């Protein structure tokens, strides 16, 4: 709860700091704010407490995911330097919107009441609609914002309809009440309940861009300014998956049989569509969009497994995925700026020669995303797969996922090939600030550290 209050206050302060002449203070200030929130959040560890008539509960689950999402924001903000350099007049608003949307994200991982879930999703999404269109002069950015807004509004409607139907069937918005009603009725109260559940699953699947509700993702990701794409594919996705798991575990555990077939179909489709879709892309950013779809699939696998390891697997996978994705988008941002907005693989040609640091960080990130050992991503996949095979009947799902992971290598390594094995088209060295370089090194080391000692995070939950 402290983190929600702090973030709201800090967001407002940020808005007013934006009226100062120099925008240079904004970045350090926002980082400081986030660090304070990160620290304050940890105080709630092992001290579960409910607020607002039990509509929000800050338990260890909420604290852990809040921590990861705040950390992810903290790590991706330093790469907003070019906004400072070009003295963007709306910089303070960007930072504030990120802080405000984090409030929504935190509500999504700590809700006990469906209304809070809905409000959380809305707070998160509305800020993202604005940020998606923040590059006002670029047509693609406008297109992204409009597409995201229309689609988002539509699927929020679906989600809301689902909530309403569930309310109609059980007479409550509280997860515990719903679970209680479902438990005494063998998990399926009536047709309305089942339909509502299905609509809920569809609504959240949209938010985490799971196939077949992923179609917006490539266009929106491509059009949105890279910094916010990075935020969109890490924090928004993590919040969505965490909310999804919480919903299923707290309200619909007894209805497992009702949602399991739908979810497993969505999972398999997401894995296949995400990975196969990524293969044919020539634009690196679009590839990352499809890759984020595929990672939603791996995250959903842990949800499909639905046992004691699920939450810890989702947590670890989220963190490893966020670290790698932030690096990938950060490097992309630097490269495409240097190459006049070119975001294809070809833009990376020869990066290994001109900027060894960027290339190395990118290589580690790609290894982590594809699940090569000694990176965090490997253990992420391992934990998810271990959670799934506890149920022997799901072995085939692991086989599918493993094959898709092999497909993943192909497109992740395309950029590695471009960086190290292609001659540089533009031999100029890309200039990056020392703080941003430090952050890149930090994330890279963190990724490798988690690949050697995953126990740092894996047994938190």
């Amino acid at each position, binding site marked *: 709860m402290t983190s929600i209050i702090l973030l709201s206050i800090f967001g407002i302060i940020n808005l007013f700091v934006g009226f100062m002449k120099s925008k240079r203070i904004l970045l350090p200030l926002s980082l400081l704010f986030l660090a304070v929130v990160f620290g304050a959040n940890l105080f709630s560890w092992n001290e579960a407490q409910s607020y607002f008539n039990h509509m929000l509960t800050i338990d260890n689950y909420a604290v852990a995911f809040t921590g990861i999402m705040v950390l992810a924001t903290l790590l991706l903000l330093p790469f907003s330097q070019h906004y400072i350099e070009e003295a963007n007049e709306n910089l303070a608003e960007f930072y504030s919107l990120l802080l405000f949307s984090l409030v929504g994200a935190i509500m999504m991982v700590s809700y006990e009441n469906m209304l809070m879930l809905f409000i959380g999703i809305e707070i998160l999404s509305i800020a993202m609609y604005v940020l998606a269109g923040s590059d006002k002069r670029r047509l693609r950015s406008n297109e992204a914002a409009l597409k995201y807004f229309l689609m988002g509004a539509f699927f929020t409607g679906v989600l809301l309809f689902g909530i309403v139907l569930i309310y109609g069937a059980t007479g409550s918005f509280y997860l515990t009440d719903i679970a209680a009603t479902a438990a005494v009725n063998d998990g399926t109260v009536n047709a309305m309940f089942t339909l509502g559940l299905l609509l809920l699953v569809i609504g959240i699947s949209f938010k985490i861009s799971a196939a077949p509700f992923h179609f917006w993702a490539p266009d929106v990701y491509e059009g949105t300014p890279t910094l916010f794409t990075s935020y969109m594919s890490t924090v928004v996705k993590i919040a969505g998956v965490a909310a999804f798991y919480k919903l299923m575990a707290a309200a619909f555990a007894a209805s497992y049989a009702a949602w399991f077939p739908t979810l497993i179909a969505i999972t398999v489709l997401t894995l296949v569509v995400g990975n196969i879709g990524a293969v044919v892309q020539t634009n690196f950013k679009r590839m990352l969009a499809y890759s984020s779809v595929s990672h939603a699939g791996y995250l959903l696998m842990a949800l499909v497994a639905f046992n004691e*390891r699920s939450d810890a697997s989702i947590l670890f996978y989220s963190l490893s995925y966020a670290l790698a994705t932030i690096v990938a988008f950060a490097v992309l941002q630097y490269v495409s700026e240097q190459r006049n907005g070119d975001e294809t693989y070809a833009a990376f040609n020869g990066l290994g020669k001109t900027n060894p640091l960027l290339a190395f960080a990118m290589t580690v990130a790609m290894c982590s995303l594809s699940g090569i050992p000694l990176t965090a991503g490997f253990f992420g996949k391992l934990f998810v797969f271990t959670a799934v095979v506890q149920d022997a009947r799901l072995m085939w799902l692991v086989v599918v996922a493993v094959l898709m992971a092999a497909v993943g290598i192909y497109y992740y390594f395309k950029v590695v090939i471009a960086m190290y094995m292609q001659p540089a088209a533009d031999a100029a060295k890309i200039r990056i600030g020392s703080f941003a370089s430090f952050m890149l090194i930090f994330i890279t080391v963190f990724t490798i550290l988690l690949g050697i000692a995953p126990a740092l995070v894996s047994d938190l939950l």
Partner: protein
Amino acid sequence: MNFILSSLIFTPLLAALVVLLLPVRRQKAIKAVTLLGTLVQMVLAILLYFRFDGSAFANGQQGYQFVEKLHWIGFSLGTLGRFQIDYFVGVDGISISMVLLTGIIGVIGVISSWTITKNVKGYFLLYLLLLTSVTGCFLALDFFLFYLFFEFMLLPMYFLIGLWGGPKREYAAIKFFIYTLVGSLFILIVMIGLYTSVIDPQATAVQLGLIGAGGTAAPNAILQVQQMLQQNMVSSADMVRTFSIPAMMEPANFIPGSLLHVLSGVELWYLPIRFIAFLLLFAGFAIKVPSVPVHTWLPDAHVEAPTPVSVLLAAILLKVGGYGLIRIVYPIFPDAGAYFSILVGGLGVLSIIYGALNALAMNDLKKLVAYSSVSHMGFVLLGLASLTTEGVNGAVYMMFSHGIISAMLFLVVGVIYDRAHDRAIQNFRGLAKVMPAYTTFVIIAFFASLGLPGFSGFISELLVLLGGFSAPEATGMLPRWLTVVAVFGLLLSAAYYLWALQRMFFGKYWIFPELRAKATITDLNFREYLMLAPLAVLALLFGILPNLLLDKISVAVTGMTQLTLQNGQEQLELVLSSLIR
């Protein structure tokens, strides 16, 4: 505790760190550090070889030598027991030969890499990382640790081919990467399945309070735990699951009702799940071996890779595949091994014949050697499938001997490529006239490879074929005609080597006119003597004195074979009976 194995694994890594800290310009120093690192590793390997007691048979938890075991990653899974990964290394008769081979080839590879000029620092850094992961692979006794090294091996190799390779290097590198990665992911699946099915009896005994924490493994306590487990008396929360390979080798450690227990009765695609697991593992390692039909990455990788990388690839990396089969696949799934012996043996023979026929058709000398590798590694599969003492000993011997000989073959190819920048067989004639010393080594390498008595290749092929011929009576594994077909492989290998020899080296000296401008055909220099001569000596030494190696390996290999055979037949009956029920 003895740290010799850890030193073996981490010496190259230490050298890599030093190389990392050296500035890019100091190329001499980088090379010197790499050479020093590999030399230290070789000395350690030789030391280990002589201190290794060949008469001890490694079976179950005991019997591995120079064992080091440290807890690495471990946490509780609630009612699902504990998750436990150990840093668990040890050496036995199967791995000792591979470690020795790695030590020797590591040094030879550095000597051969001396002429590298492009991005020296990066090259040697990757080279040392590769050596670390291969050594780790051969020494790991924890499946997870093995897998980690196994998969990490891909990265340095990928870059070594992709950055220092020939014109089609990107294609070859990514092909190599994806093939091996798909294989290793198969292995990952089975590894996870095994992990859910196997407990560590000693740790479980500690958990149950039968022995004190850190107490030594009392054999009866372990036996008691295993009996309790099979009678469903150990609660799930007390089970300490493990990745330990020795624990996985004992059928008594499998949790009743778990996925891979012999009596699980689970079927997938009309086969018992244990058989599926075996096939997945086999596929994973067969890609690495490589066996026909998943060998197609090998010729591409070899053709594009620079000479020293080819040497490492052929001499050490391919051995990981065969080693994995002997160390992991057969002992853990002996039932499926017995059931599928005809498949494994058949693929082996197919590799022998198909590889040899391809080699016969090649115009590129390096491709010829690459296909001869495919052909020779087929013998490893054949020997293993026979499950006879001679056959499996022959397979291990073949891996060692092929490591020495294939290194020599690729070096020999590299020598002519360095001089002429071409290696097409039809572009050269009568090289013996201008390069007599070189021709001598070529002849030694070719004859050693085709199995001339007196060279190590002969011993291994002899053992494998003996095993194959005795298999129908001794173990009832392979039909005799299969081995008869394999013998034709010997004939074919004699044919392609002698034909190549005749075309390139004998007759009147002539080289293709377009090459003459760039080519400077001179005989061997000192550096090339330095890398070829030791290998020639070793090929001869192990051909004349096979006991030098067999003394160290045969007890463990024989023990493993008999255990596999015995367990295999017992478990096969159980698996099949559980299906009928």
